[in-house]
């Protein structure tokens, strides 16, 4: 039931967002080409803006996945932590030890050096 409610909330909020855009715009003509040109202070681009971009933080995104995986495990772990006590600490310690190998590797590859 809660999920259904949530579903309706998402649906209505997104619908509201689209409706506010669509209602005033329905009779609007398409803006002319000079208006549609990208704003560069009077200058013009030579190409489209979409491009293959050098994602300099790409290794960092990989690192984020390492952390995210940790979170996947940490969520349920957080629930039973107080109940399990020492055992939970050791389990998480083991998991983090394995994970930190990945982080150390990333470090060696120079992820933390921006550029």
């Amino acid at each position, binding site marked *: 039931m809660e999920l259904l409610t949530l579903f309706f909330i998402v649906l209505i909020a997104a619908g509201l967002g689209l409706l506010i855009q669509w209602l005033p715009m329905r009779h609007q003509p398409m*803006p*002319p*080409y*000079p*208006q549609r*040109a990208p*704003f*560069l*202070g*009077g*200058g*013009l*681009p*030579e*190409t*489209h*803006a*979409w*491009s*293959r*971009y*050098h*994602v*300099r933080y790409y290794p960092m995104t990989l690192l984020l996945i390492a952390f995210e995986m940790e979170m996947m495990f940490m969520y349920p772990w957080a629930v039973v932590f107080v109940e399990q006590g020492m055992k939970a600490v050791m389990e998480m310690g083991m998991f983090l030890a394995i994970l930190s190998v990945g982080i150390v590797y990333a470090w060696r590859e120079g992820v933390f050096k921006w*550029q």
Partner: protein
Amino acid sequence: MAVSWLSRLAAQASVPVFPVRGLHGEEAFYQLALTPGIELVDSPRHASILLVAGGVPPDQHDALRRVHDQLPAPFATLWYCSEPLAELASATRLDDPGALPGALMTIHRELMSGKRGSSPRLLPDEPPNPWEGLGDDGHGGEGMMGGVPYGRPMAMNMTDDLRDGLTLDSLTVILGPFLPMLPPGLSAKVTLQGDLIQSWTTRGAPYPIALESLFFQALQGPVPIAALERARARYHLKRLHFALRLAGLDRLALEALRLAFDSHLSLKGVAILRRRLMRSGFFRLTATGQGRLDEETARRAGGVAARAAGHEEDWRSEDEGYRQLGFLLLTQRQGDTAARWRQTLSEVEQSLQLAAQAEHEAVHTQRSDGVETPRGTWHRQWPEEASDLLDDLLPGLEWDEAMSTLASLDLAPLSPWSLEETGGAPITQDIGEESRA
């Protein structure tokens, strides 16, 4: 009826104005930044009025037309101390700085109530390149490559990345001369890889800046040092305003501007500003050594930039009047963006200190064969225009670093006319107090 109710409400909104800063037009915007009910926006898409302040050279009229056409309807134009484009002959022109805020508000209200129609489009409604139906995939090229899909070519890998040599797409654009984060008038052809600047070719120099008439008088005969130093402090505070606004520190930016327009500008106000700047991390944001000028370029840039790089270049140390006041030349060593701002702030404080002292002793300048302008030494010749040094300085920087470096450099040439002569806003002493009340 619902529509009229909506537009009546919309008429009450603060007036979003997109500033086009023409020749000697900047003073008007300082004044507007302090005016309640006017909002200077950063993109023409967010504006309902295009305000052109100051003249625009004829070769930049096309660029102006493009910016004009980029405002979404309904919008209007206002020309302050500027001749409207030929097609817009009936547009409103205004030369009185005091009437500017009122005129903007009236125009906005008239636009919303429908009394004033939207400004006409100036450029023909044509795509940049026709593309449909040509070539293998209808984009005008061969196979998957080339052509002009949707009017423009796609980005192609032209250059190797500056940092690690990876070859990816680069974007070449022409920026300016009315881009709000660049100095007015500066235009450049820039190649970007993502937000990294690969190459920068300055195409148009920034517009000349008008100094207060005191600096011109100093070349004719002795002038009171107190007034001269206050004028210098004002100049630097206005530049600081621009940089702080760019960094998103709006409140501090306004504080700097209010100080600049404060008739009782004192050391105390600047000390408070310095403390707040320290706390806001403004100096730390730019502390990575970016925008460092080497010795030769720093000398060319002159003024604050030269002294921030360690050059002991200041006409004031040649002047007997200043020596009498115990003028001490301040320098920094690093020569980067942060050093330039530290130097600027120190010089503002020093100027106010000198002013207070000189007022007390009624000291005048002694030599009139030269003067230290805020832009650099003016002796025999003007401080030269140096915007082409950007071509070597900016490549390799990311967009935000490049913009903050640009804001910290004062490269525009000096105007042969003084601020008072250019019809620009007078040194309005009460703006600061008015808006504070």
